[in-house]
């Protein structure tokens, strides 16, 4: 019988259902079918944030109203119930809850934790911020939104692999010619990057030519408007002429409004979640004392 034959699959299916029902419903005395005791939740002291959120979700009855939790539990029940597949969804769902399956199923747990965290956070989202509030947030976090330094340059390239040992001398000659007549049309070796580059940040230059090149270009004297170099890249030597240099500067609100707004919401959400967790922890402490 081939391992892909349906007959084998159905035979396996039978074995699976049998094993599954034994495994799931076996109690310590080995009486299949008996409902399990609800597992007590672990003690609260030292509970992780996730544990707190999970308990709060259960306390709020989220597991009863969440459509995905419901679907998951019903599917679990159908999976084990097998031959009892005629049972109505509502009944299977009740049975799953009675079995405490929602407390032990990892997927349900993850869902409820995530949902609780998002709920707590979204409560902190608050009203739409106005320009004033956005500007204040931007000012407070100026470094995060700062616009990076950038240069616009032209480069003439001499290839390491084409020129071999003549590279340094060729570069010297090229630069001498360029300096003698900055307007001269000298072609270097081909490179798939343009000779006249648009405004580039240090990071962008490093991506195209390697980090050494980017470092060297940004270290060039600010007042050097002629051809400079040779500057080493990952591929060879370059003559470089800087046309424009934009210093790093704080961003204007108009440029970064969307990102600032999201960052502000994120900060509010984080605070709200922290407040909620602190409250849960405090309340949990009181309850433990009362116990």
């Amino acid at each position, binding site marked *: 019988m081939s391992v*892909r034959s349906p007959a084998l699959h159905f035979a396996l299916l039978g074995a699976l259902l049998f094993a599954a029902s034994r495994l799931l419903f076996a109690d310590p005395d080995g009486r299949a079918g008996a409902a399990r005791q609800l597992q007590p939740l672990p003690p609260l002291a030292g509970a992780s944030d996730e544990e707190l959120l999970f308990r709060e979700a259960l306390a709020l009855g989220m597991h009863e109203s969440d459509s995905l939790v419901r679907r998951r539990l019903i599917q679990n029940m*159908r999976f084990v119930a*097998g031959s009892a597949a005629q049972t109505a969804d509502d009944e299977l769902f009740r049975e799953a809850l009675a079995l405490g399956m929602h407390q032990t199923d990892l*997927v349900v747990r993850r869902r409820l934790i995530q949902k609780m965290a*998002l709920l707590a956070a979204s409560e902190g989202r608050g009203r739409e911020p106005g320009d004033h509030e956005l500007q204040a947030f931007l000012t407070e976090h100026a470094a995060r939104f700062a616009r990076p330094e950038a240069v616009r340059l032209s480069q003439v390239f001499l290839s390491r692999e084409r020129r071999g040992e003549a590279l340094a001398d060729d570069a010297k000659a090229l630069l001498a010619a360029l300096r003698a007549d900055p307007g001269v049309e000298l072609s270097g070796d081909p490179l798939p990057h343009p000779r006249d580059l648009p405004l580039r940040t240090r990071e962008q230059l490093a991506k195209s030519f390697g980090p050494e090149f980017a470092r060297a270009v940004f270290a060039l004297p600010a007042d050097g408007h002629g051809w400079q170099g040779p500057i080493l890249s990952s591929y060879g030597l370059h003559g470089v002429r800087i046309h424009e240099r934009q210093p790093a500067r704080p961003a204007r609100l108009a440029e970064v409004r969307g*990102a600032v707004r999201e960052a502000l919401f994120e900060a509010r959400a984080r605070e709200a979640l922290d407040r909620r967790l602190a409250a849960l922890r405090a309340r949990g402490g009181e309850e433990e004392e009362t116990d």
Partner: protein
Amino acid sequence: MGTVAATMARSGTGRTWPGARAALWLTLLVPFALGTPSSAGAGAGPPRRYSEAREPCDDWNPERNVYFGDLHVHTAFSQDASTQGTRNTPRDAYRFARGEPLGIQPYDAAGLPGRTLQLDRPLDFTAVTDHAEQLGETTICNTPGLTGYDSWVCHMYRRWPRAAFYVMNWRSSSGRPRFAFCGPGGQLCLDAAQTPWREIQSAAEAAYDRTSACTFTTFVGYEWTGARDLFNLHRNVIFRNAEVPALPISFYEVQDGPGLWAALRRDCVDADGACDALVIPHNSNLSGGLMFPGTRRDGSALDADDARAMARAEPLVEVMQHKGDSECDLSAVSGPSGMTGPDELCAFELLPYDGFVGQYFPILADPPPVSSFVRNALGRGLGLEEELGVNPYQYGLVASTDTHLGTPGAVAEDDFPGHGGAGKSAREGVPAGLPDEIDFNPGGLAVLWAEENSRDALFAAMRRREAYGTSGPRMTVRFFGGWGYGAELCQSEAFAAEGIAGGVPMGGVLPPAPDGAAAPRFAVWALRDPGRDGAPLQRIQIVKGWLENGTSREAVYDVAGGPNSASVDLATCEPRGAGADSLCAVWTDPDFDAGERAFYYARVLENPTCRWSQWVCRRAGVDCADPSSVGEGLEPCCAESHRPTVQERAWTSPVWYRPAP
């Protein structure tokens, strides 16, 4: 599709652009314009129309820049990631992509991460693509990629997968579309609003650089996690801008590709507003041949409308990622004279099984059929085009990571922490020995040629397939097809301008042959990765597929560089032997037949380097001659099947040839 949110002209310094390039601009502008370009305010530079408000980019280049990114990223919002201990959120993933360090599991009791990762250089763009099926009930055990397989259901599944499959599908069908109703008291819609979907959008917004610096682009996206008969049909959905459907359309709503495309058309592309989306299938290597069936789901023949819908929705395919390479297998390449035998270079990150089941139950799985591979699908696309007049499999190629740690672009072989997901879990501690399954790998990158780093420009590049994939390194590859390129093009600083002027870039269809042109010519240029991940280049190949009397044929040509003596010192992972910084060729198809449909793509190979597993084995001091040196979890280091080196590579999107009607 509709409104234009903003029309912006280049703010500028009175710079003028050479008139000769004006015509070029017009053709370049159209792709990401939603309407006709406005002349208002267009004085100093090209007017650019965007589908949402943003500043025009300073990095605008009509000949296009190359951008590296990751279009397949999971975070804690994917159940199979969170149950593996991943705590990073979409926001964290974007921070990581932008270059910030990020903690990853295992976490200690105080919540501090045991490991930290950082990219040595940021990505240019990223899409977080968490599973839309947040709980993934139906796919729970169809795809270990999807949900907590620590759950007892999945334990069952691992022991009796095929049997479990029947059970899982033996479920009552609710029949109700999840998103079309709100239930009593609106409870379900309230539910929906609490899902991570809104957070995913916020995270994308927060990280998208809308300033003129254009340092980083995000896309709102998700993974549609479909399967059939336990075989993977997974697809990523990428949205063009912030305007997206109220909720992702998941496997619950639609169970196959055509259903997904139709739903996306209804809820996004054809809806009022600026919503636009495209779909990228992945892991066809795990699809048991079902990813590119060439028929409808019920087995009936495709018609031209089907093919059109397919081609429109899915311009790209993910050719390689964490769970293996999907380019080609070792079937014989029956090519031109002297070119028979297997394409040996297909022996690269191939998984030995045809579906997820094979990871756990090799006995239940077969090796992947040739129809699972992208190259084969490209070939069958030619046949379908002949029949239907439309090619449903006109795919451009990208790669990505499929990280489940929230770490986009973490592709370094020498620093691979495992990617979680279907791979090894580090929730309770770093696994002993190898950090991931031996057959898996760090994945690759998606690369786009676009005028600027904005969503609209990158999305347009995806649409027109001006895209390629790499297995990790950031090599720059340009590929043009035309009829008149001269051999001197490789010596020209104007390679790009002449390439554009004389033909089409990767992803395009060759224009009709001019009189007297005997065969198409291809100009291809590859530049090695300038960073630490890069090794010298070994060769450029052109892979040709064509239709000969209705039969799909393939050939592989070395067009620049070639086999060399480069190797790796396995004891140190130091590379040996020479390679190239740059390779370039203008190649004419020597076996061209004007009556045969064909596709051509370039494959660029680096010299061999140490595979991630060899880095781990070497650092652990494994000496296969000394069994006592083979610690726990390091057994695969000495397995016969272990490949200690890889040849990292890039695959360009094809250029297609269609005979004149």
